[in-house]
């Protein structure tokens, strides 16, 4: 009797593990080395309900683009993100954030609608640290994936100028609040 119970439990566990494996396999994908084709593969997966893997797909696509650098990759990513946001798979804000983080000179980390004294200065160090991290992502998107060195250097230059201007501005804000 005990032997039968043990067999049943083992069988259940095996089935459960198979089911889990099937779910993972359903969303994992080996991407083509062609960036446009890889994007189509990802779009199919997203349509099949794998939206939760979106961030992972983007990372995979960026790696693929870095392995196959081309100045057109920037446009391909933009079109891809516009398509998936139009399909409602991700929000427009998310699409914009991803594109700008990797492919634009401007920094997503340096945005805000309130004045600098009240919003930016209190978190200046964090903003600059986030910009520094974002610059690494821009290196991947602009230099390694898109071969757009000029834009990357502009972003680097912008970061340095921002450091200088924020240091002065925030010091002036502090002096005014004393």
């Amino acid at each position, binding site marked *: 009797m005990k032997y039968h119970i043990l067999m049943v439990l083992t069988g259940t566990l095996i089935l459960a593990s198979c089911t889990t494996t099937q779910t993972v396999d359903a969303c994992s994908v080996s991407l083509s080395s062609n960036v446009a084709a890889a994007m189509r593969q990802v779009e199919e997966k997203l349509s099949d309900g794998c939206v939760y893997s979106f961030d992972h797909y983007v990372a995979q696509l960026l790696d693929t683009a870095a392995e196959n650098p081309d*100045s057109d990759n*920037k*446009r391909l990513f*933009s079109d891809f*993100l*516009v398509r998936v946001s139009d399909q409602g798979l991700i929000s427009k804000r998310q*699409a*914009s954030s991803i*594109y*700008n983080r990797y*492919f*634009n*000179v*401007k*920094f*997503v980390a*340096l*945005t*805000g*609608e*309130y*004045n*600098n*004294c009240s*919003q*930016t*200065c209190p978190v200046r160090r964090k*903003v600059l640290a986030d910009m520094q991290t974002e610059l690494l992502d821009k290196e991947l998107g602009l230099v390694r994936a898109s071969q*757009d060195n*000029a*834009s990357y*250097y*502009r972003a680097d*230059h*912008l970061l*340095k*100028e*921002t*450091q*200088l*201007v*924020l*240091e*002065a*501005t*925030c*010091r*002036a*804000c502090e*002096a*005014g609040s004393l």
Partner: protein
Amino acid sequence: MQANDSNTTWEETMKNPGLIQAICLGILLNACLIDTAGAKPTGPTMRLFPTTVLEDIRETSQVAEEMENNIQNVITRLDLQQQLFTESQCAGADEDPGCERIARQLGSTYLEMLNVMSERLPDMERAVTNTKTSLEKRLRTELGQKSTATSLQDALLGTVAQATSDESPIALRGRSGVRLSDRFKEYYDLVATRQTGNSQSLAVIASDIYLDMDEAARLIAATQEEIARATLMEQLNQSFGQITPEMAAVVSGVKTILFGESVDAPPVASVPFLAGDVPFVSPLEI
């Protein structure tokens, strides 16, 4: 006949107020279009350098120049005496009467320098503080209170994108080998000549000058505190004819402030990078 025709047309035109208005509007529109095409895109207007700030910078330059002129001779004499002291191998030769005489002369010149400094520093302090305070106010208002992070980024990026190769590089912090008065003259020229240009680069220049002034104000305050003590110490040393490392350090500090004889960190801002081709513009761009 043709002349008559054209006269008739002119007269008809003059009689038609609607047509005149249309022509005037056309001329105005053309003027606007030509102006827009010819003007540099300036982005948000920032009044960082009103006349008062410019005057403060110019005055600081003048005060610095006066101080330099007064102290230059003393510093040169100090350098020569120091050189003589070293070449005569006087270091440690306390008993040598010749060395003692050189040391006393050196100490006396050092006292002279401290006197000039104590006479001139209050003026310098006032000028630097005025420049710092007026710039501080402008920075706080224009960049701190009227700008957001987004608009600041737009303004700064405008500088990098719009700068052309015929523009001189913008101000740099911590430049070595530049006399204080020359630095202020450069600041003044830089700001005065860029008043009509885009306001974006002025944000960097204003920040640059302000941080420099803040540092200078602190250095001047610290130097003033030290001068009284150093004077007393040297008056005592004159009795014994000693050259102290402190003397060398103070002279070196003065030379650094006034004549920029130290090597600093590389400049923060440099020649902007220019993208050659027309870049791809995504609809997703912020």
